């Protein structure tokens, strides 16, 4: 396609076509309404132009019927657009529940993207993915708010310090696609860009194995768990100073305050950085904070490790 007259980015994900269809529908509606209005204005302005200086037009107060018509019809059209738009949005933010997805950890920081594949392979400002498999990104920022944007996939999500946000896509076409930061983040905001490389499955495996063997997120988390001394209190022994973490992820957990909390990524992160805010039932508030001792990528690895700790009985339930 001649790039000079390109109006759409490449359609390279399962969602791209849906979003474009919605876009064309809205363009169609807009052309109809804007067209009608512009035509009416031009037509009336010419047809009813002043021909003599003392013309006095007929007094027309209004028409309830017209008001109702041009209120209700646009409302109905808006309803359709709202429903369709919401459906596309839900499809775009909810990854399919499948074992096949690749989970990538992402941190944004001024002014670069750090990405990690499940097997530990790390990338900076680039993301290699295979065609035809859902890719799920879990993201956070190390400083200000950024936004992870891939126009070819028609998807973006803000990357916010202090919380995890997620984005998913399934690529459908091989190629190289722009990755942009889409939330102003300071001096080099427009240079916080990169590429998403979509390859077929075989090429992806080759690329992955050819890279520097990093440790996987789970292995990295296990290493940090030991290095940071977590093991000493969360040893799993009875009478230990911290709760046993095996099989804990995903369960409802009781706190000293009497409330329950779901052990999810957000709670684990909070426990690491601000442990005294939610003390576990039956334990004393002695856990120190790890603020400044572990970065966001490290926290994500610890979460991956804790997720992987199964209880003695259950094997596969949590996934």
């Amino acid at each position, binding site marked *: 396609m001649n790039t000079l007259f390109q109006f759409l980015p490449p359609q390279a994900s399962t969602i791209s076509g849906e979003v474009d269809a*919605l876009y064309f529908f809205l363009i169609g509606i807009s052309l109809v309404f804007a067209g009608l209005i512009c035509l009416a204005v031009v037509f009336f302005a010419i047809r009813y132009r002043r021909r003599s200086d003392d013309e006095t037009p007929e007094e027309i107060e209004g028409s309830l019927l017209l008001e109702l018509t041009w209120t209700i019809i646009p409302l109905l059209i808006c*309803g359709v657009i709202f429903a*369709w738009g919401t459906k596309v949005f*839900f499809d775009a933010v909810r990854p399919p529940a499948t074992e096949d997805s690749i989970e990538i950890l992402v941190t944004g920081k001024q002014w670069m993207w750090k990405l990690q594949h499940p097997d530990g392979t790390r990338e900076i400002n680039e993301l290699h993915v295979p065609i035809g498999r859902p890719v799920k990104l879990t993201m956070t920022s190390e400083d*200000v708010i950024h936004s992870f944007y891939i126009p070819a996939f028609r998807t*973006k999500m*803000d990357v916010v310090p202090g919380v995890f946000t997620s984005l998913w896509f399934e690529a459908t076409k091989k190629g190289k696609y722009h990755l942009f930061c*889409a939330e102003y983040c300071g001096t080099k905001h427009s240079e916080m860009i990169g590429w998403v490389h979509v390859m077929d499955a075989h090429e992806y495996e080759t690329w992955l194995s050819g890279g520097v063997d990093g440790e996987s997120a789970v292995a990295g988390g296990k290493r940090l768990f030991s290095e940071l001394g977590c093991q000493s209190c969360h040893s799993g022994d009875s009478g230990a100073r911290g709760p046993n973490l095996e099989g804990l992820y995903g369960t409802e957990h009781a706190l000293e305050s009497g409330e329950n909390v779901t052990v999810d990524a957000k709670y684990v992160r909070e426990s690491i*950085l601000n442990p005294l805010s939610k003390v576990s039932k039956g334990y004393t508030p002695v856990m120190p904070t790890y603020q400044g001792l572990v970065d966001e990528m490290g926290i994500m690895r610890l979460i991956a490790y804790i997720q992987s700790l199964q209880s003695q009985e259950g094997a596969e339930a949590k996934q």
Partner: protein
Amino acid sequence: MSDKNYLNVSYTLKSWLLTVDHKRIGLMYLLSVTGFFMLGGIFAMLIRLELMTPVGDLLQAENYNKIFTMHGLVMIFFFLIPAVPGVLGNFLLPLMVGAKDVAFPRLNLASWYVFMAGGLITSSAVVFGGVDTGWTFYTPYSTTYANTNVAITLVGAFVTGFSSILTGINFIATVHKMRAPGLTWFRLPLFVWALYATSLIMVLATPVLAMTLVLVFVERVFGVGIFDPALGGDPVLFQHLFWFYSHPAVYIMILPSMGIISELISCFSRKRVFGYNFIAYSSIGIAFLGFLVWGHHMFLSSQSVYAAMVFSFITFLVAIPSAIKVFNWTATLYRGSISYDTPMLYALGFIGLFTIGGLTGIFLGTLGLDMHVHDTYFVVAHFHYVMVGGVIMAYLGGVHFWWPKMTGKMYPEIWARISAVIVFVGFNLTFFPQFLLGYLGMPRRYHVYPDEFQVLNVMSTAGASILGLGYLMPILYFTWSLKYGKKASANPWKAKGLEWETASPPPPHNFLETPIVEEEAYAYGPSREVQIA
């Protein structure tokens, strides 16, 4: 009979700087906002010049970021918000309701001084190194990471907000308490309804901005962790607080402009506005619903999808009253007696451009689509269509329409029509390509960009130079007209409305005798006459 009008009743500087005459205050606002507009325009010119090429060859990144920040700050806080209420609202509201002045004339003067103080403080931030947070001040960048003049700018914006609040109070009191005998609510000109709805927003929303700016200041200067996640704060809380004001703020900008359009369409069709009641109620409806949609700036900020759905839904609702107005203005043209004077050219242009701007707002409110176009040039194009294609066109139409009333002089009609066309063409060439750029994926606030976006950027810059010429021309010929313009009669447009029932320029206290209103608004039909007792 005295031939003194509000302009020549005294020539001393003191009589201007200490005036309590709403008409003089309106002119003082005119001078101030024109100056700020030119400053904001220079920043725009620098942005468009830099963006002609994909690389950063005119400005360094940090300076570019300061320029787009200051373009937004100046245009929004020092032009778009104050212009119509401050210039035309101040000048016309008492005249339109048949009063001698606003309810609180000294408060009115205070509004202008507060505005100028805020302008001075913010300008000093600009002059002494600039600020680069974007006009939206998102945290934690603005609180922790930016190392430019954020604190001074926060103070400047804080102060300026009080100018809005005071004007809003004044207008509300004036409309309630100072209407001439016989002037019931539903006999008011629609411009008054628009100013009233706007004033409600100014009074209710601006304090939220003030408080938000204080919180950012407190965190930045004293390190209190309100928005800092490391201290237990929430950066997204800032966005909620900021947009709770800033969305209603855009209705502060557009509502008075819509009021102007009602006046222009009716006068230059020589007909009562079609669906008067519906337009009046729509103004109030927009003001109310406008407070409920702030989250549509935050669909992707990490808020829940259910919150996003609610905000999207209400966003569609708020579009409807605006659509109703557009349909009613168009219907007013039907079987009218239409002339093509400059104010009408601006009004007709407004209808087209505001329709496009409003429809693209629907695009942005559609969740599935916003995921792609949020934070891209699509947004930039949308808001320039409503703010420039809408507000500024209406403002210029209004200034032309009421220029003879304000100054007693006519502007040169041929030059004015030519510049209206130049503005319309230049505007579309500048901003339409930006819709395309946005959908192609070009993010906003980018100093450098991939090569493939260049052609559309060059088109946009070319349009901007034409638009700039179109704005320069009125500045020149309005100034020229003050000395050489044809003398204007009391009612050169043969319009209906109390402001046209007094001399051009008006006497110091507006009317020689209090008007008594015995007819509906826009009574262009053959049988009605205004009785002045």
